[in-house]
């Protein structure tokens, strides 16, 4: 069985698994990293949204064999580690997670790790473009929340943007 090596949440891991197994299952079923959730397996619900080399992606749509040894995967579990201590909030978390807590966004919570990872990437993207979040940016977010927490997600992203 092939060996797969990559970095996840700051630690280099090597896993024996076939090349074509999607990263979501390697994270969840083999590495027990359960923050990224299964909601569709076809990259439409976005519940598994995580980061690769600082950008949002969906591990349900990436064969583990496509990862390089130096690719850095960050899941919700590793998100606080992406900012320096001084930027972390009262719970020791990433500013976007802190905004999520202040706004009490989560209901069932299942999609929320993916929502937060998408939100962080979106804020970083608009910052790179030298602008701030617009309603159109929020409308374009594809992460589904079946509890319908969209209103608070929108508030928390604008709040998190200020804190980031």
């Amino acid at each position: 069985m092939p060996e797969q090596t990559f970095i996840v949440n700051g630690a280099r891991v090597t896993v024996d698994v076939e090349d074509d197994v999607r990263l979501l299952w390697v994270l969840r079923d083999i590495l027990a990293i359960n923050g990224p959730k299964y909601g569709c397996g076809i990259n439409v619900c976005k519940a598994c949204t995580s980061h690769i080399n600082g950008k949002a992606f969906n591990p349900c749509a990436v064969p583990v064999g496509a990862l390089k040894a130096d690719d850095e995967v960050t899941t919700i579990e590793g998100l606080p580690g992406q900012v320096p201590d001084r930027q972390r909030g009262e719970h020791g978390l990433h500013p976007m997670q802190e905004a999520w807590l202040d706004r009490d966004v989560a209901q069932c919570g299942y999609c929320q790790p993916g929502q937060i990872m998408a939100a962080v990437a979106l804020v970083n993207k608009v910052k790179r473009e030298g602008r701030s979040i617009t309603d159109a940016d929020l409308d374009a977010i594809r992460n589904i929340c079946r509890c319908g927490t969209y209103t608070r997600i929108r508030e928390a992203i604008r709040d998190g943007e200020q804190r980031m």
Partner: protein
Amino acid sequence: MSDVRPTRHDAEDRGSFGRRRFLGYLVGGATVVAAAELTMLTPPAAAAVPSVPQVADLYDLNELLTDAALPTSQLITVTIHEDGSASFALPRAEVGQGITTAVAMIIAEELEIGLEKVRVTLAPARPELVWNQITGGSNTIHAMYYPIRVAAAIAKGALLEAAAVLLGYGVDRLTAYQGLISAPDGSTASYGDLAALAASPSTRQVAVDLKDDRSFGVIGRPTNRIDALAAVTGTKVYATDLTVEGALPTMVCRAPTLNGRPVSVRNTAHVKAMPGVTHVALISTGVAVRARTFGQCIDAIRALDVVWQDGPVAGLSDADILAGVKAAELPMPALPDNLLAKTISADFTFYFRSNSAMDTNSAIADVRSDRAEIWSSLKNPIWTQQRIAQSLGLPQDKVKVNVVEGGGSFGRRLFSDGAFEAAEASQVMGVPVKLMWHRADDARVGRAHPMCTSRVRAMHSLGQVLAFQQSHTSVETDYRHGVGEMLTATAADLPLGLGNLGFAQTIFNTTQVIPYDFGVLLQTIMETDSRFNTASMRNIYSPDVRTANELVVDQLAKAMRKDPLAFRLEFLRNARLKRVLQEAARRAEWGKSMPAGMAQGIGVHVEYKGVSACIVEIDARPETVNRRVWNGVTGPRVTRATMVMDPGLAINPRGVEAQMQGCINDAIAMTLTSSLHLRDGHFLEASWDNYFYTRQWNTPPQVETVVMPSDERPGGVGEAGVASACAAVACAYARATGTMPTEFPINHNRPLGFEPKSFIPPVPQSPTDGLDFTY
């Protein structure tokens, strides 16, 4: 705990809200365990209105469920631990509605302890609770508010008595605050210090007074959820996140027609030899495969070559099922339509809609020859335990059923489809399984809100509505879970669906109210056709019933040349409802001028011991309706929503607001965009790119939710806003377009917004191009 006996209200205090003396128990043991069994039913509201009260006016579903809970809730216990914390095993399912937070707040309030010191877990199936372990009808807080408070108050009383001995003062001179008891001399004892001292050597009956509502500091304060930190850090545990030794990923390959059955597998050896695959086994609903990863289960399912027996609706489509529903419609009494009295008639159709949650049907099962253990998010764990024991051939007490937090329910987890399959697969394979439904299965085979029709006839004359009749006819809503226990479930399963129809009629009659003074009121329900996988979806009948109602209310207002708001305020027969509608109208700026193609709409609703009014603004202008979103559905957009609710005493107003926001988004989906299409024996929708639940591009950019102060006993909030919001969206759409819609969702019979995925194989392969879409 077998020595705990039922308790009753102190007879003199029954129904009294001034003095609140209740009886409960201190349970014998090594620490403080306080128990309570009682509910205080509010007296029926006096009906001083010309319309004869409907059943739900006098006795609604909440009272039915609360009465069902009466004989056994003595076993609700609050325990004090030596670390100063309190624990409570809630015999209900938390699926996002926020009941663990509300319950923790109630305990913190009555016990005088910090919220962070209260641990609320979900109780496993406890058959001794008989009726009292169903999560449904938004009933948890309504039913458990007093029992939980009484148990907490008894625990506090025991701690105070122990402190009196320790500190040398009478109980009446001590104060309890934040888990600490203080004496006048400044000496203190913590609950942790007192837990063992206060333990009762034997079980004894205790009388207790509850806190005065006016001194509440926790109840009624907007509070963040107790599970929020776990949710935002990815550490909240759902069934598929659990690690159970040997329980490998397992999925089921299903038939190409709805509820088809497997006959045989032609290539078992080939599939078994695929990477990661450990087991391939025929079960009653399909072919189960177990593998090292779920991805390898998907590969195996796609490779399986199975001989299927067609399901019961093979070859049939929406139109066939609708014809069956129409054939079951009961005749409605003829109303006059002449110069003196006019009758407005309107017939509506509501298509199948999915209650699929983000967290698909899933369960872990470890079945051995002499015992079994199950882990799943279950709203009916006792019934689940009984059914599983029966099918495995085990005694009921050898099946342990653990209730795990669920990633949404919307009615889905009233049934236990994943748990039943997991138990069967584990038994057939002889190994533990972590069984998860693929999204495609959850959408196509998972339970749904049944297709139904609603016919409304309203007669008016000289500025009065003389009669308002509504006849609702539906594909059967499955109530075979009973009220949580095998005996009532068996009653629901009587031949010919008669038992289930009785349940349907009871639920319908105890939930549905026409809240207007419209003379002779009549609402009936008939159900037919049990071939589908259905369940009570969030708010059951009310979203459709109230949508049909309120559209006709707007027609009546128009016929009488009255403004929709003024008309409703004139005819509403419920003062609480009038109050929330007036508040909603003020906040929503009812009647403001809007461009052509945009309009406001109103919906109101009474249920779960509360009332709500919703006003939305919709944009149905072509430039909005025809806007493009890649792989998504647009159409008219609700641009602003205002929801005002009086839910009775709101334990956690922040939680109530969250539920209202969710209800608004459910309503937008149900009214405008989301449905299942039955074509040639199967539902086409197979994922979130087919089933168009509300997305960010559909959600209102402007949402205001208001929780009104209330002196009423706490009602239910998880579902309460769906009906009023659905009706508001439908009415706004009708006013914006000048055409009353009669089919819901309104886009159901327009060209499909997607390319249907394959039925053989039944699940789509995961893409491989994810790295092309990073941002």
